[in-house]
């Protein structure tokens, strides 16, 4: 856990995201009908979700570790990772809605992908509500850790599997090819992958900042 105090990966994150902010606008993209320049949203909308998956995944990992060891810090990592993940969730959802307005015609067209995303969002809101509902600290940590471990795979099923089994407007679902297959060329990949890695690091960084604040708060409260 020493890396959370180091800065090399934070600098790397800033450089990667900074690069994609510039290259994402200036490098050429494939010319496609309907999408036009909005295809550049791939560099910004998709990495939000990637970052969200990673911090939620970290949260699950530490929930499991909490259940094994009972160490309070692990519970704090789990909650702060979810808090950060929810911010990226909202950003992903809102950017997706804006994109949908111009690619699909409406902000919300009750597309399976959108509806699943809304349900999965509520799933994680329920996690926060659950935490606030239990007063006793160890009980809260244990119950919410178990909830978190179940919530993650359900979220993955809702976001990545169920929309793929029906017709969806979203690329990568229901016979609708993903960007990776036909639309994204190698120039786009040169921006897309760094964007994903950069934003994932950014999310992890914010989560570690929140965790460190939480540690100090926790210390002050227990004194």
């Amino acid at each position, binding site marked *: 856990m020493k890396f959370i105090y180091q800065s090399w990966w*934070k600098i790397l994150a800033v450089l990667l995201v900074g690069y994609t*902010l*510039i290259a994402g606008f*200036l490098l050429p993209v494939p010319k496609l009908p309907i999408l036009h320049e909005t295809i550049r949203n791939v560099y910004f909308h998709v990495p939000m979700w990637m970052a969200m998956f990673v911090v939620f995944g970290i949260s699950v990992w530490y929930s499991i570790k909490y259940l094994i060891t009972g160490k309070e810090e692990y519970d704090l990592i789990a909650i702060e990772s979810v808090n950060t993940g929810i911010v990226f969730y909202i950003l992903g959802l809102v950017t997706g809605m804006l994109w949908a307005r111009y690619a699909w015609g409406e902000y919300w067209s009750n597309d399976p992908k959108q509806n699943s995303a809304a349900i999965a969002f509520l799933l994680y809101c329920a996690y926060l509500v659950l935490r606030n509902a239990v007063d006793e600290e160890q009980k809260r940590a244990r119950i919410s850790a178990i909830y978190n471990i179940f919530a993650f795979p359900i979220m993955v099923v809702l976001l990545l599997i169920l929309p793929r089994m029906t017709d969806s407007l979203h690329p990568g679902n229901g016979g609708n090819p993903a960007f990776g297959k036909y639309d994204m060329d190698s120039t786009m990949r040169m921006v897309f992958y760094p964007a994903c890695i950069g934003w994932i690091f950014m999310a992890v*960084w914010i989560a570690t900042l929140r965790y460190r604040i939480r540690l100090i708060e926790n210390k002050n409260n227990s004194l």
Partner: protein
Amino acid sequence: MMKRLICLLIMLTGYASAFAQDIEMADTMRSEGKIYVVVGTIAILFIGLAIYLFTIDKRLSRLEKHKD
């Protein structure tokens, strides 16, 4: 010496631009529908945010040192 040279350069470019007001020249910030201006704005914004994040990080580190 260096300062004077830079000053002179800036004055020269200013002089040149004063006479090129309504003639579009091949300077990058005005080309392709001025997209470079937007890119510049975003870059500045992000650099600002990144510096802000780093200062929060530093402040937190100081706080943590103080605690122990």
